């Protein structure tokens, strides 16, 4: 009995590095040899997809990038797939960042990885506004007077770019897509774009942020969202614009399974130790 107890306690106090190694090895094996687990597409993803699909051709889309580079491995592939779909539909894309200074660099990645730099013309089909300071005040100003951003990320005047020169306010933007990890930018857009202008608003969110924005989805203010890499995989599957998310889905499912296993082991170890100290 005491020998068994000792094993449980040891497992409960397993060196974290062993856990990391096991998880990394499992991920590598599954990435190289995927098993093809089934994928169920959820309602938020369907609504996200339908919102883009039903837009008239040539609609102007504003993509807010309010995530730092650290979360890009989770959000980037989704943003690329969305970018590919917008390009294929013949929509116009403007990127902006109101919270993180690296927004211009991440936007550049979106344009490159989803084919805009090769198949579309800068200034006519897409524009990178870069980072705008001021946080919520910036979002407020952007809705009322788009031209207050007088230059894009590459220092070109907006009045010289055919896509942006005629945009006056939020009424000239047909859809907002917020790509965000742990920021408040979505709430700012809801306050200053969605509520006063009835702008359509969808989100690409990191898994860690789904809980914070779920209330706005439940209330209908956010029409749809892609939740983390799983949401991204669902979107890639639905839209047909395949990318890294769908390739990683099996690995993610297995990692979740292992994580739950380790949590259970740690808790059993804790309980056994707790009982032993009480005795």
């Amino acid at each position: 009995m005491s020998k068994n107890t000792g094993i449980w306690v040891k497992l409960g106090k397993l060196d974290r590095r062993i856990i990391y190694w096991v998880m990394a090895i499992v991920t590598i094996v599954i990435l190289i040899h995927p098993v093809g687990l089934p994928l169920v597409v959820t309602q938020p993803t369907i609504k996200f997809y339908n919102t883009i699909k039903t837009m008239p051709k040539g609609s102007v889309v504003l993509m807010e990038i309010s995530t730092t580079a650290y979360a890009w491995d989770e959000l980037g592939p989704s943003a690329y797939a969305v970018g590919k779909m917008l390009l294929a539909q013949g929509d116009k894309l403007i990127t902006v960042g109101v919270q993180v200074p690296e927004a211009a660099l991440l936007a550049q990645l979106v344009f490159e990885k989803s084919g805009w730099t090769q198949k579309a013309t800068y200034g006519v089909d897409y524009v990178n506004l870069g980072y705008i300071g001021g946080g919520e005040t910036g979002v407020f100003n952007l809705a009322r007077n788009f031209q207050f951003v007088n230059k894009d990320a590459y220092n070109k005047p907006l009045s010289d770019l055919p896509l942006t020169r005629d945009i006056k306010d939020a009424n000239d933007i047909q859809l907002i897509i917020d790509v965000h990890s742990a920021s408040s930018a979505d709430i700012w857009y809801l306050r200053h774009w969605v509520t006063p202008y009835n702008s359509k608003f969808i989100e690409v969110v990191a898994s860690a942020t789904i809980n914070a924005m779920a209330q706005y989805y439940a209330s209908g203010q956010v029409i749809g969202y892609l939740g983390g890499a799983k949401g991204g995989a669902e979107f890639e599957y639905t839209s047909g614009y395949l990318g890294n998310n769908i390739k990683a889905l099996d690995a993610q499912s297995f990692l979740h399974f292992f994580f739950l296993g380790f949590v259970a082991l740690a808790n059993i170890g804790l309980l056994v130790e707790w009982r032993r100290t009480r005795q």
Partner: protein
Amino acid sequence: MIDIWLVLGIVATLMVWSFFFYKNTVIFRIIQELITAIILANVVVVALQNINKFALTPVMQGNLILIVPMILGTATYLQLSKKGRYYSQLPVALVLGIGIGIAVQGALSTDIASQVVATMLPIGGNIVDSVNNVIFILCTLLTIMYFMFSGRMRTGVPSKFSTAGRYIVLWTIGAIFGVVAYSRFALLIGRLQYILQALGLIP
């Protein structure tokens, strides 16, 4: 032809991971300082670009009123002087006042009215939806009770509801922790994909 940026990316990733998979070594500290320096450099460059974009260029074009916020912005540096510290509070107060004013303007309908309306869910009709809606409404009410009755009314029937509300808050925090962990897995997978794709092991 070797892509130098790809190699740098892999090396930097492995240097960061050395902390998790081995221990805190000089390799990890080097990459830690390097990342901090790169981020800081980018912030400084973007901040200077913004000053140029939103202040200097419009002033040069004749929009002289923008000299006022430029002076106010510069006044924040008076914090560094003992005599001028008082005056540095003026721009801070102005920014806070405007920020709060703008936030409150949209918050009433966005964060309060819409959320209250969204909680008024129908009961009846589809049984699954009805059960979901009852759970949703109950959780909302119990959580509100926890925050309202946790201070003064710690006895009697309200305290039972308050305790139930506390458990709901704890479950929610547990769920949030779970998805944060899942989010980190996505980052690990993303980096591993990057390395394996660079090595040609996966498409």
